[in-house]
């Protein structure tokens, strides 16, 4: 993207206004990644802003080896992992309320359910809870693979780990999430392996 390189060059030359274009080109991508990583709008907005601030302060360290957006992704992932775990209380509260909703989940079958709308939002809440229960690294790998559609090699680059680590983290995340789904279904079938 030659325009992107020009913009970066202009910002580095002191033309700070060009940074606005860089932000506007990437704000949706970074916001939605932040939303996937944090699970709520407020934190997503906060994280995405932090990403752009860090990018601005460290723009001279961007070597152009990857695309600018990949570099922003890397900042987002690292920033999120390094953030402290202040949200735990809220997550725990939400998990408790989900457990009470377990009975409605049992009735969720694809074809016969008359209250599809309710179940769809319930399903989303369950999946959000399952995501909340993953470790930050697990969530990050899962989100990058399934919601951001990155190949495993690229995830390894973004997270600065080996492809092997990405795979084992991804499989662990999937096992945990399936376990969560199974327990919500109330099948009592034990842990999906």
């Amino acid at each position: 993207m030659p325009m992107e390189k020009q913009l970066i060059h202009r910002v580095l030359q002191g033309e700070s206004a060009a940074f606005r274009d860089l932000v506007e080109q990437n704000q949706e991508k970074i916001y939605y990644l932040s939303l996937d990583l944090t699970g709520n709008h407020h934190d997503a907005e906060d994280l995405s802003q932090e990403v752009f601030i860090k990018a601005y302060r460290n723009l001279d360290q961007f070597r152009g080896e990857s695309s600018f957006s990949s570099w922003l992704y890397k900042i987002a992932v690292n920033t999120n992992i390094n953030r402290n775990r202040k949200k735990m209380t809220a997550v725990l509260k939400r998990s408790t309320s989900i457990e009470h909703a377990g009975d409605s989940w049992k009735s969720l079958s694809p074809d016969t359910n008359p209250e599809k709308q309710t179940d769809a939002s319930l399903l989303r809440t369950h999946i959000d809870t399952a995501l909340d229960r993953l470790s930050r690294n697990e969530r990050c790998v899962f989100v990058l693979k399934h919601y951001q559609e990155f190949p495993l090699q690229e995830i390894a680059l973004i997270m600065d780990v080996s492809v092997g680590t990405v795979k084992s983290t991804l499989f662990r995340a999937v096992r945990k999430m399936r376990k969560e789904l199974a327990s919500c279904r109330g099948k009592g079938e034990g842990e999906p392996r």
Partner: protein
Amino acid sequence: MKQCRTFRKMKLRLYYRELEPDTARTLLRHLETCSGCRDEWRQLSLDMELLTERSRPDPGKAFWAGYWDKLAARMQRESRQAGGRKESRLNVGSPVVPVRLIQPVAAVCLLVLGIIIGRHFMPADSSPRSVDGSAGFVLSPQDARQQSVALLGQSKAMLLGFANFDAREGDISTLNVPLQREKSATMLKRASALRQQLRSPEDGRLERLLADLEFILLQIANLEDEDGNTAVEIIRSSVDERSILFKITLQEIKEARQPHDSGPPENSTV
């Protein structure tokens, strides 16, 4: 029993296509004969569908319109607190072009005008370039999307053949397995090459559809002449479980309706 254990151990790697082709084939064969593992595989596919189908709410036009202003205000605030970093020079939400920017802005406008004139009045090769998996060039997002939808369309006839096959009474020779195998291998290569080219976030659904197609094509490409109706039944259920024919039709309708280069959808779904 030993094979069941191997399947359980390896099923996630099978799902993510992280196994050697021989191992994948052995496991797929095991699924033909073991109903327990087949059920487990179905459940895994269903769970993955649930876990990965996710729509995110759009925060709305006002949010996007005010995004820069809020960010710039925060940068200036933090900068003041830190004693004046470089972001204090940021131009917060100013609609007016500062005098020192007039020259660069004019240059960019001329450049854009040049591009527009070039696109509209210069002869150009309008046919989308094809991708064969070995070529290293990058397709334009629009070409990649068009070729992906075309490939999905081409695969429909083959998928329909499997979807309509009656495993109990059908005659497998009517499917012409050697021909289907060859066609799937070619399509598989193409699907995988095209999927690498779809990098835009709006193409997430299309990319996932190609991944589903790849998965089924891999099964077909691994069919052997001596494989029986059960093998075809597994492919048929893959086509069913993933509702791939329905999704392809939806994608074709969407592609036909949407003007290209339109803005992001109101509700971004991944």
